[in-house]
């Protein structure tokens, strides 16, 4: 586990710390989103009204404790993901967080008794194979750490 404090906030993170931090943030995000989704699904499915065009139904469903908990987890997940996007590419983060889809299928079958077909294992294997491939690529291709601070922070992308 990386040490969670920066000695000099104007300096960017050391390369080794960046990779470990990226994995830590990835894990936190995947878990928060999976449990958040489960809470939302549970709450909305046990809600008597149909959601869609009526904004009042949305306001009322917010009072459901599961929906509230789900929303809190989603908000924390958003913050974690923003931090993640500061250290890693979008095209890296997206497939890596796909492990969440496997968790969603698992939670759907375990907690919500949804029928998950037999081919879901094939899908799971494909996702993990894809994640393994993507994880072997560089986490950040648009930025090198020496360019991080200083006034040209937004320009290096254009120069590629």
């Amino acid at each position: 586990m990386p040490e969670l404090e920066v000695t000099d906030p104007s300096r960017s993170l050391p390369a080794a710390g960046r990779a470990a931090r990226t994995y830590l943030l990835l894990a936190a995000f995947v878990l928060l989103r999976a449990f958040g989704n489960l809470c939302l699904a549970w709450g909305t499915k046990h809600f008597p009204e149909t959601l869609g065009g009526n904004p009042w139904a949305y306001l009322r469903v917010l009072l459901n404790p599961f929906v509230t908990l789900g929303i809190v987890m989603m908000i924390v997940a958003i913050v974690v993901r923003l931090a993640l996007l500061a250290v890693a590419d979008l095209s890296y983060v997206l497939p890596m967080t796909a492990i969440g889809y496997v968790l969603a299928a698992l939670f759907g079958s375990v907690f919500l008794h949804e029928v998950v077909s037999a081919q879901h294992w094939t899908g799971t294997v494909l996702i993990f194979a894809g994640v393994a491939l993507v994880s072997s690529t560089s986490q950040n291709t648009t930025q090198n750490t020496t360019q991080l601070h200083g006034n040209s922070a937004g320009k290096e992308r254009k120069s590629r």
Partner: protein
Amino acid sequence: MTWILLSLVVVATALSDLLQSYEMKKTGDQVATASGMAKIPAMIFHKRYLILSILCLAVSFFAFMALVQRTTLSFAVPASAASFVVETILARFVLGEYVGPRRAAGVLLVLGGVVLLAR
């Protein structure tokens, strides 16, 4: 209605992610620390692109909530992964990320897996 909601989720998610990735890369990796993350909520209200991305996220979130209520979680979640392809292409051409053969193959494998999960 299911497909309208699903398209809404995909388009809003892609837009939101592009805006977030662009703005956060510009901010730098110092925010990926415990003290840096504490500053992110306040940051959201100061950065134009982040405000816009949160609006897109809200649209995708409410559409997703309606989607998950009328279908199953094990359909809704993987189906919204259609945004993968759109976003990887946009990350390559709009954000200038390097999507090499290994990363592209990985994304396709993940997508294939997600489609299988959606059935």
